[in-house]
């Protein structure tokens, strides 16, 4: 179904046509607890009303992640998750909704930039997030992604100064991943000052602004939309469900459905 539609276009359409106040983008740890279950969890996201999926490739040393996602990555690798295996999960999910791959820089370096980005396109992946590839290190990968219509999505943090935020926003493709807190991924009690964070991010870019890190409940998802987020990313809460629930697929379906409802 990707055909002539580029990844960048698919992502734009997912934001524009979500039918919600903000597009819902759940995070999925590829290969956790195993490849087949992770695919089933991704399908459940789509069934429950997700608009896009952020698919993580597990990495041995995930510096931007808190304990829940770190542990899931370690466990996925122990269960022999490979980059190819996770990309196959991505290809299956791309039949349903746009897939944005999240992986650390060394995964991209290990395969070689061009080979890696080609593999993304072959698997129908629409976008790529590399949390440890900041603005200064990104130009070569950005050019390769642009040539293939894949959105290289940058992150901005509360610590990012205004001038730098403008430069990142200008180079953003797909959406601008706005980190809600100074910290690693993980569930948090309340969203603080996100309205100002979102306003600042939106002023710096023409692409939609999605808020991530620390969003774990339907109430927080709704609050993010109220505060001006065009997209809401939910990670650790769902990974924790995949880890703890007796029936992970049913559990994540219920969680994502509740968040989707809260955004309608």
């Amino acid at each position, binding site marked *: 179904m990707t055909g002539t539609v580029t990844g960048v276009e698919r992502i734009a359409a997912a934001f524009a046509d979500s039918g919600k106040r903000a597009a819902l983008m759940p995070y999925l740890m590829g290969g956790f607890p195993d490849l087949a279950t992770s695919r089933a969890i991704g399908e459940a996201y789509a069934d429950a009303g997700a608009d896009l999926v952020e698919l993580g490739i597990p990495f041995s040393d995930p510096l931007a992640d808190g304990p829940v996602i770190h542990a899931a990555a370690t466990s996925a690798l122990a269960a022999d998750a490979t980059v190819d295996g996770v990309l196959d999960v991505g290809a299956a999910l791309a039949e349903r909704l746009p897939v944005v791959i999240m992986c650390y*820089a060394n995964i*991209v370096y*290990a395969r070689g930039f061009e080979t890696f980005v080609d593999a993304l396109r072959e698997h129908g992946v629409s976008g790529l997030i590399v949390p*440890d590839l*900041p603005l200064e290190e990104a130009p070569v990968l950005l050019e390769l992604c642009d040539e293939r219509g894949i959105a290289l999505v940058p992150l901005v*943090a*509360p*610590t*990012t100064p205004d001038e730098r935020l403008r430069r990142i926003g200008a180079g953003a493709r797909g959406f601008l991943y706005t980190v809600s807190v100074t910290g690693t991924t993980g569930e948090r009690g309340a969203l603080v000052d996100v309205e100002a964070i979102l306003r600042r991010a939106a002023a710096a870019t023409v692409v939609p602004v999605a808020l991530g890190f620390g969003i774990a409940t339907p109430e927080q998802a709704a609050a993010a939309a109220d505060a001006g987020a065009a997209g809401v990313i939910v990670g650790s809460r769902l990974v924790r469900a995949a880890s703890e629930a007796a029936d992970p697929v049913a559990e994540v379906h219920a969680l994502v459905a509740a968040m989707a409802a809260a955004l309608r």
Partner: protein
Amino acid sequence: MITSVEHRFGPYGGQYVPETLMPALAELEAAWLDASRDPEFTTRLDELLRDYAGRATPLYLAERLSEVGGRPIYLKREDLLHTGAHKINNALGQALLAKRMGKRRVIAETGAGQHGVATATACALLDIECVVYMGTEDMRRQKPNVERMGLLGATVEPVEAGSRTLKEACSAAIRDWVTNVATTHYVLGTAAGPAPYPAIVRDLQRVIGEETRAQILEKEGRLPQRVIACVGGGSNAIGIFTPFTADVEVELIGVEAAGEGLETGRHGAPLTAGNRPGVLHGAYEPIMQDDDGQILEAHSISAGLDYPGVGPEHAWLRDTGRARYEAISDRDALAALQRVAKLEGIIPALESSHALAWALANGGSELDVVCLSGRGDKDLAQVLEMIARDGGA
């Protein structure tokens, strides 16, 4: 003292960190450039290095070692510094810098515990809160250092992830920094990590080489044929090498940990083994990794060399041919420790024992300097256990 801060050494180095930290790296670089040009800062650091840490350290002609080696072998006695290793040079400098930047809290990673102890010491002296991340396997191997850090008022945070050694401690420290960056300075202990760390740590450690160069000229009237130092991340090596890099006749030899043997994959020698470059802990450098790019666990008898990456400047010194890198096995390092103890009455750290083992095994030089980067007291329990098990050397 400093004219610029390099971000790259050839293709190596860079800044591969979460966006949250990028402004902190810029702030650190600016603060360092400013401090290193400020006589008040450099004078204070020089005073502390001299009166508190015990610099200059002697350059000692190890006579019995020289007899065995068939040429004069000098030892640069960083083991005589306060806290027992070269790590205090960097820790004092960065703790002073943290104070200057108004950071009230300092974090550090440690493998052997030497950098953790040095940082805890500097923080006690300067009245800064100190948290040290340490793998639980290293805590077991280096129990006395864990206890020392506690006495010095630091909090040791045990790290249970992965191999429970230096790599995981580093990752945990970076995650803490991502969360507490506003109040916290990360005192990285080796010449690796994202820019500006490799340059800052090198410039805080180059005092080793500056002293050595002046001392050998005074004692021998000429430069050494070879300068030999162990390399984990590579801070003592880059410190002693740097003042000699323009002296092209001086061979620079970095000694990595061959662990159980390069062919077994259980080593800590990415430069010698020719491991592919990749990104680890914020820098692009040769690292031990699988085909997918997952970082592999290093192995070394020595907790300080038990690391799958290496400082980016060393990779560039290797590629340009300016320095040469070799590797020494666990067994040979342990044997060298015992030999040097009996020959010289000096118990070297297991890390430094790798450099000594290489010097003992490789003649063909007229005048050698070995960096004795630390003392072996911290290793006693482990060494005695291994000697009891394997019969020692």
